[in-house]
């Protein structure tokens, strides 16, 4: 055995910037929260309605912001129309560029249908809120439930397309062994659901909705997908443990030679296991103790969001730092500008703006599976959750009929 040193190793910059992480994160929350909204909005399960309302606002806001992050990751964003002028069916990215806008339209369609009854109820309100409700609700006609279900099912189908293309886009890249595994697409979906459930938990608290049903349901979703993610990680490991090449071999090599990869691997597994354990513990508490504990579930939500984001950061950014031809590991600081911190903060800022605009102008708390929204049914829903009534100064100011 000889020892070798590399005298001149050029620096290879990363090709995808943190914008890519933001896109993969936002679009994962988008498709996963759509599925969380599905039981109530598409299949008519009333018990899931509070979850669906929270999931829908999460879904719409992330669906709007994700494509912005994607465009920003192009080095020539103004040439985005080339995707349609010169579509290449050989490329997963090109297929994604077709699926994404149709998916966006279907999500906006579903949200409009689900919010329409409440918008109609708000038509007579004074001020900008009433004006927007009048303009957005497009008349007083009833919203057929069948239409909501059909549009919702279309959106679900297209969301599967998004899951498939975002995963496949990475998994086909042989040049990055860590991506080149069939286990990556399902893992992206599983961590997407973890992040989306986490976001619903946080929104449940931040919006003042504080529905215990939603919290319980999201904790079960978290539990399930933590278990699924764990199983996928284990299968991936066992699948490739004895191979000399491939995804697992590359990962083991990275962990062996790089302290930062070691701490990343440790952090990821410990956080995942801890999240699973705490959620399980919470759900095993006696029912009368649960409401008090559920008030803190939003903290678990934050951890879950962190999991979803960090997984994408490691997969998309850290993997690009693994040198393919030169010796050693590349170490990069995150730049401050638009290809770094500014991009990350900017995307989250835009997302917050989207959430706030919806909060200001859309009575999203009354989303339902079509039909007609009567003030009586709204009152019944509002009073079923006493905390919700006290928390909602924003909507009350605009004269929403059921708050205050």
């Amino acid at each position: 055995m000889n020892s070798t040193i590399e005298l001149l190793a050029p620096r290879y910059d990363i090709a995808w910037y943190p914008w890519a992480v933001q896109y993969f994160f936002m679009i994962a929350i988008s498709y996963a929260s759509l599925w969380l909204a599905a039981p109530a909005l598409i299949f008519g399960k009333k018990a899931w309605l509070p979850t669906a309302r929270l999931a829908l606002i999460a879904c719409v806001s992330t669906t709007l912001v994700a494509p912005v992050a994607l465009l920003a990751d192009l080095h020539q964003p103004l040439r985005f129309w080339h995707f349609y002028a010169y579509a290449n069916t050989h490329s997963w990215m090109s297929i994604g560029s077709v699926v994404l806008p149709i998916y966006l339209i279907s999500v906006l369609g579903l949200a409009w249908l689900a919010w329409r009854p409440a918008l109609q109820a708000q038509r007579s309100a004074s001020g900008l809120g009433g004006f927007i409700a009048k303009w957005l609700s497009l008349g007083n006609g009833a919203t057929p439930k069948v239409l909501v279900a059909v549009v919702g099912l279309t959106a679900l189908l297209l969301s599967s397309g998004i899951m498939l293309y975002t995963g496949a886009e990475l998994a086909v890249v042989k040049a990055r062994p860590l991506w080149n595994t069939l286990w990556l697409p399902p893992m992206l979906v599983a961590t997407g659901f973890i992040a989306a459930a986490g976001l619903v938990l946080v929104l449940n608290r931040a919006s003042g909705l504080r529905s215990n049903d939603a919290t319980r349901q999201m904790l079960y979703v978290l539990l399930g997908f933590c278990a699924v993610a764990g199983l996928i990680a284990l299968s991936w490991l066992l699948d490739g443990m004895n191979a000399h090449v491939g995804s697992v071999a590359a990962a083991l090599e990275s962990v062996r030679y790089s302290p930062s990869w070691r701490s990343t691997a440790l952090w990821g597994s410990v956080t995942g296991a801890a999240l699973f354990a705490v959620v399980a513990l919470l759900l095993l508490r006696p029912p009368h103790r649960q409401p008090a504990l559920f008030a803190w579930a939003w903290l678990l939500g934050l951890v879950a969001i962190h999991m979803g984001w960090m997984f994408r950061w490691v997969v998309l950014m850290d993997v690009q730092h693994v040198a393919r031809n030169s010796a050693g590991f590349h170490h990069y600081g995150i730049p401050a500008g638009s290809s770094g911190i500014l991009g990350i903060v900017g995307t989250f800022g835009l997302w917050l703006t989207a959430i706030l605009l919806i909060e200001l102008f859309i009575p999203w708390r009354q989303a339902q599976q079509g039909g007609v929204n009567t003030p009586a049914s709204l009152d019944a829903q509002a009073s079923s959750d006493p905390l919700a009534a006290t928390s909602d100064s924003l909507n009350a100011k605009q004269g929403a009929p059921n708050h205050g």
Partner: protein
Amino acid sequence: MDAIRRSLLGQLARLSAGAALVPLSSLAQAGINQQPARREGDPTKRYGMLIDLRQCIGCQACTVSCHIENAAPLGQFRTTVSQYEVQHQESGELATFMLPRLCNHCENPPCVPVCPVEATYQQQDGIVVVDSDRCVGCAYCVNACPYDARFINERTQTADKCTFCAHRLEAGLLPACVESCVGGARIIGDMRDPNSQISRLIQEHRDALMVLQPEKNTLPQVFYLGMDERFTTRPVAEPVALEVLDPHGQEMGYEFHH
């Protein structure tokens, strides 16, 4: 044009039929991520390069002449020469090993099918090029190339790579790196012409030739003579701290921290 449209329609048909009937794995094989049709270039030629490592002294003349010929931004290279110092662990004897790297103009280039707008394509003479007017700068190809042969050009904000100096070949000139190589280590030519120098060398040294990362199944068309097998994949090597500064005093090379 008709042939292209026909193949496109064929792909679409296969895709939609696939989506309805077959499991996902076979959908992925039904055309997605497979090579699109080659276009432009001379179909009677197939360019390739043979690098005789026994002649390479690691002077980086190729790196510099390529950089000037193709006006690459500072710190970004279409070709470089990796330099290794190898020590025999028992005898302590030292040797240097030079490995010129460039685009391999693969027979199965992984960078081509990933391009969402077909801005990067393979010519019929085998040369892989980028249409920088069409490129959207998504950098998918940069990630898809196992050889680090591509980069996003800072100035044009589009993908950039070695073209075997196609513009010079067209004018009957040799690529800048070949022209400037002091040892004559780089030999380029038409591999379809049995009398070309490269064809004769390939014939003569067929068993000794090696390519980089053969396991990736990209079928590289840059062949190395005098290669050590341990360098065909990423070599197990210790990096050495080395700073290369640009005229503004900014570090362009790699700074290693142990």
